[in-house]
């Protein structure tokens, strides 16, 4: 039975990977060129460092993260509108289904009319991974990686790494219970140590390599994840608590595909440091 599990899941995972590893598919006369727009979005410098992963094959080990820039807030409706104006191929009526499912911008009132129920400065949501990438390209940026996101997400308001603080973990767990926050303007709370806003409690965010999160059917395939999370985990250390809060983010990443558009899933952009 175990091998069957593996087979079934491999198929699932392979097909999943394929979607995201392909470049934007060509189809008919749809324009896959992204036209640049000017963005005045404030970014913050994130200094290089390392963080202890709590998930996956490298679980428990330190992963190096290079210096990079990260948008201080998620991309907003207003910002996305300016992208659409220059890139009509990404409007709701013209986008390819392959690149964005039927939920794409479904809350907008028209191709160039922002949602009625959300603030112009609210995070843009109902955005596929492809769309998020196209936007990032138009402003000369890219999506952050999971490691980059998690590295910055470990910071509270006063320190780079708040993983060991129970109150920070509690704050993240609580943020899961907030509802409909994606309708509100960004910067609902104070910025974290890096000057980054809204990492928690507002929207989930696309990452460049989200599809690397795999739902496997058998935890025994992954010794570290299993033992780290379930056996040793019976002793509730703060690190375990931290893991606990992170589970939900990874569960979310594992549940989506690149063309999915979801009410509370948005994105922010990152940028390399040019030396």
């Amino acid at each position, binding site marked *: *039975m175990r091998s*069957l*599990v593996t087979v*079934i*899941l491999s198929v*699932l995972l392979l097909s999943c990977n394929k979607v995201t590893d392909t470049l934007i598919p060509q189809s008919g006369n749809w324009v896959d060129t992204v036209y640049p727009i000017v963005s005045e979005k404030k970014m913050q410098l994130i200094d290089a460092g390392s963080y202890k992963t709590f*998930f*996956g*094959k*490298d679980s428990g080990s330190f992963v190096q993260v290079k210096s990079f820039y990260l948008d201080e807030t998620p991309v907003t409706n207003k910002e996305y509108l300016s992208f659409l104006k220059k890139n009509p191929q990404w409007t709701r009526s013209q986008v390819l289904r392959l690149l964005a499912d039927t*939920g794409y911008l479904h809350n907008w009132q028209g191709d160039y009319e922002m949602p009625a129920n959300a603030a112009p400065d609210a995070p843009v949501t109902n955005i596929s991974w492809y769309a998020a990438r196209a936007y990032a390209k138009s402003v000369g940026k890219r999506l952050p990686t*999971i*490691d980059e996101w998690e590295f910055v997400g470990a910071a509270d308001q006063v320190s780079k790494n708040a993983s060991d603080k*129970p109150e920070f*973990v*509690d704050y993240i*767990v*609580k943020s*899961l*219970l*907030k*509802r*409909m926050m994606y309708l509100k303007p960004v910067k609902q709370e104070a910025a974290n140590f890096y000057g980054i806003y809204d990492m928690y409690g507002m929207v989930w965010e696309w990452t460049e*390599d989200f599809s*690397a*999160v*795999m*739902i*496997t*059917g*058998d*935890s*025994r*395939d*992954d010794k570290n*994840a*299993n*033992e780290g*999370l*379930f*056996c040793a985990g019976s002793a*509730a250390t703060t690190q375990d*608590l931290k893991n*606990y*809060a992170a*589970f*939900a983010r*990874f*569960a*979310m*990443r*594992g*549940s*989506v595909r690149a063309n*999915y558009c*979801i*009410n*509370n*899933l948005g994105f922010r952009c990152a940028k390399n440091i040019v030396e």
Partner: protein
Amino acid sequence: MKKQFFLSTLGFAAIFALTSCNQGNNPSNTTSSNSGSSSSGTVTVVDAEKIVAEGQFEEAKLTAPPNVPPPIGNRKAKKLIVRMETIEKVGELADGTDYTFWTFDGTVPGSFIRARVGDDIEFHLKNNANSTVAHNIDLHAVNGPGGGAAASNAAPGKEAVFSFKALNPGLYVYHCATAPVPEHIANGMYGLILIEPEGGLPPVDKEFYIMQGDFYTKGKNGAKGLQQFDIEKGIAEHPDYIVFNGSTRSLLGNNALQVKTGEKVRIYFGVGGPNITSSFHIIGEIFDKVYVEGGSTINEHVQTTLVPAGGSAIVEFTPTVPGDLVIVDHSLFRAFHKGTIGKIKVTGPENPNVFKAHK
């Protein structure tokens, strides 16, 4: 080289079995629920696999607690479509105390599913578009990876579909197995699925659906207003509330169950947990029959039956005198201080032959 993060759904599900760390000791768990069976007419799992479900797919009728769909009776195995939706919503946990429940179909426990051995079930799990997180379902009635958990993992607004054949008769718990699993269950994501044997369970007059669950709130028991999930209390296994059917008042007052004397009553009882087991007891009544652990073994003349978290029992009794029966977890501080209390109003003529109070 791309780094990969593995998220194991089965692993999360296994946390409840408490055997995940030494699985090597278990040869197989696919047929274990049939071992020790003493009742007649139970087909083996191998036979059940050969049963052909005839006809077109039909929509299964599900019910909200405390109701149960009609019995399967003598019907042949068929093809069933089961549709459920995961919904996050605020509801009453106790008088004046609200909680953000995560549910199957908007109730705690979720809808009751009723099928028979040999049925082919196509399961559609939709996650409501307003959900904040991903959800899935692990049905203990499923022989297959994670009980369907990985195959049913649905992002907000999305639907996942998987199929299974019901092989083992019994009363099974289902629950969400999306990480972090204990939180999803602590928020109310569980329910029961009954797989009847061929020919159905013996007919009774009244059937009810009750599940016990433990809740962990920031404020102490009795604190008013909207209460949030408290992870520390969950890990410490110190619930503020332990209740039947998701609320301290679900089986009290106007919600008390109603039966008549002489009616044969069957209760499908399960424990969602996530942590606390139940010493299930009805004050003033003896269980004539208990389907132990929801399986095929029947015990008779039972006062209290122990039901594990993620487990179930079917109990049967026939009230003979009128009055109130009180449903409790006989770990009684829970009943008096945390909420595991419910009532059955029995109406009918006095029966001094059986019971009489002397002045």
